[in-house]
């Protein structure tokens, strides 16, 4: 029983990590009034670029840098089209997904083709990892997992206790008022989107190099949209986003657990539906959140 619980918790953490990293980035861009459904594509690109970097330099660190740089670049493109040109965020995000799907498949066939790359190494916490049974499974993770957990209080602090966090939240609520008191709405939104892009790229690289050690076409499989749902579910706030991503991670872990039971094998497709169904259910129960910015998805026009 103990071993079962430990394994389940470990699987939960493993699947929750990319969701958490991407969702923490999205908290900032969503709060600034941007809905980026292109997150899926950015994560996919991050997954691919991470593998390419890791393959070229035989270092997962370079892979992470590649993934973040790609995420920043795609974020910048998204920001240019939606903030500067005021195009529809939904359409630009959607085309970003198509673009990334094409780009990753093309580059994958050209460069990777399922080759194994250096994955993120694990680091054990001294002391805690010595605990029998639970220790090795729960206190021995790639650095990104620790980073994701540390990023939760950090982003909470930035969002609620610093000047810049206040500005980000304000531009999402009332951009016009911000503009009149001298806050540069465009700059804040650009910054939030690029930061979210970096986090999404990093999250993607964890899928290819943390959970596996190779790139598989379309491997994100809706993870970007789930991260968006996690942000809604988590009421646009880092602490609750952590809870939400752990719940989503648990549903994924439950899926893998059920797939090992006799019933699960016979109905594997229905088990695979589980994370998607849970995303929909979560959205239904928590669609109207108090922290949703008033000017979500509304482009700002400076007259």
């Amino acid at each position, binding site marked *: 029983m103990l071993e079962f619980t430990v394994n389940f918790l470990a699987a939960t953490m493993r699947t929750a990590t990319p969701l958490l990293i991407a969702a923490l980035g999205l908290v900032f861009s969503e709060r600034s009034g941007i809905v980026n459904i292109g997150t899926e594509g950015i994560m996919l690109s991050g997954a691919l670029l991470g593998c390419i970097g890791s393959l070229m330099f035989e270092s997962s660190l370079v892979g992470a840098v590649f993934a973040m740089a790609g995420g920043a670049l795609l974020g910048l493109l998204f920001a240019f*089209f939606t903030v500067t040109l005021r195009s529809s965020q939904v359409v630009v995000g959607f085309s970003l997904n198509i673009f990334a799907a*094409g780009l990753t498949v093309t580059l994958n066939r050209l460069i990777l083709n399922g080759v194994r790359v250096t994955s993120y190494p694990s680091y054990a916490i001294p002391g805690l990892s010595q605990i029998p049974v639970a220790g090795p499974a729960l206190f021995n993770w790639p650095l990104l997992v620790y980073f994701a957990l540390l990023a939760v209080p950090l982003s909470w602090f930035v969002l609620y206790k610093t000047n810049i966090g206040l500005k980000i939240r304000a531009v999402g609520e009332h951009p016009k008022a911000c503009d009149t008191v001298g806050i540069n709405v465009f700059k804040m939104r650009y910054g939030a989107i690029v930061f979210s892009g970096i986090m999404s790229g990093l999250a993607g690289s964890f899928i290819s190099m943390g959970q596996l050690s190779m790139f598989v076409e379309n491997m994100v499989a809706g993870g970007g949209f789930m991260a968006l749902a996690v942000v809604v579910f988590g009421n646009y706030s880092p602490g609750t986003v952590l809870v939400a991503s752990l719940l989503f991670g648990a549903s994924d872990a439950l899926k893998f657990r059920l797939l090992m039971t006799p019933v699960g094998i016979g109905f594997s497709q*229905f088990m695979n539906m589980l994370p998607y169904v849970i995303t929909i259910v979560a959205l239904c129960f928590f669609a109207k959140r108090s922290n949703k910015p008033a000017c979500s998805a509304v482009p700002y026009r400076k007259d």
Partner: protein
Amino acid sequence: MNSKAVQYSKSIGFPVLSILVALILGAIFITAIGYDAAFAYRSLFNGAFGNIHSFSETLVQTTPLIFTAVSYSIAYKCGLINLGAEGQLHMGAIFGAFVGARFEVLPGGLHILFVLACGFIGGALWGLIAGALKMRFGASELITTIMLNYIAFEFLSFAVTTEPFRDMTPGAAPRMTAVVEAVRLPILLPQTRLHLGLFFALIAVVVYYIFMWKTTKGYEMRVVGLNPNAGRYSGMNIGTNGLLAISLAGGVAGLGGVVNVIGLQPFLTEGFSNNFGFSGIAVALLGGCHPIGILVSGVFFGALNAGGIRMQLMAQVPAAAILIIQGMIIVFAVSRELFIYFGRTGKLLLPKKQAGGESDA
């Protein structure tokens, strides 16, 4: 009159400009990854329009795209974003393939109608779920439709591997039972795969036009889509209109799926859809959700799909590179400001006197 002409030239000029810019950027990308872009585009063009066979292949690809583009447009006109055409197309195909392989007692014509109706219902149900969740709980259809896509893929994966849906022929690959000969659509051109489904797609566009612009219900939907408050104020029900719109949208996408089954591939397999749902959205966006626009851009995207296969064969450029071009086309097509922006900054870069002389303001 004159301003109308300007309007027309703008509504054609911007999409054409987007395509050109996307194709040029695509060529740069293809060259950058080490292929011969000119040869790639030549084989793409030949694969799409080179001879009667390739052109009919283009139209075969166009057929489902028109259905999914109409699907996106119906929902869009009512203010909803339907990103779920891919899943609705899958559900329509599953429903249609299931009844198409059974009920042989029905006379041929009636059986076809029954199969089409079931395809429509399959897609409509899938759309209705997203619509109902939006109206009842306020769940954003952007995410629910995408999630429903993945659920539909799993349903198909289930249907092709499990009795009584799967084909039980010994040694058959995972696929659903083939539809009976009586419901298969006739081929329009001998020795090609071009089937009667193209006409159904044209009919769908005509019905879309008549419904949206010539009926009261269509007018209501457009009012609700443009300004929900105005609609509510004049006594229109936002919820009912939205539910109807997304169900119709789902149904039309479902028709696209079932038409592909009875026209093209009697065995429904996983991956039967060449990204039709998502490319259909691109078709609608490039065509501005206008009936004529949908037809023209449908042929264009069909050509990209058909030509992409040839491009991969001849020039070895992966057909997925087409998606890169598709993505760029949509983003440019909805960003008219882009060309104005670069026009403006371009002018700013010029010496002041020259810029002043050119501008008419």
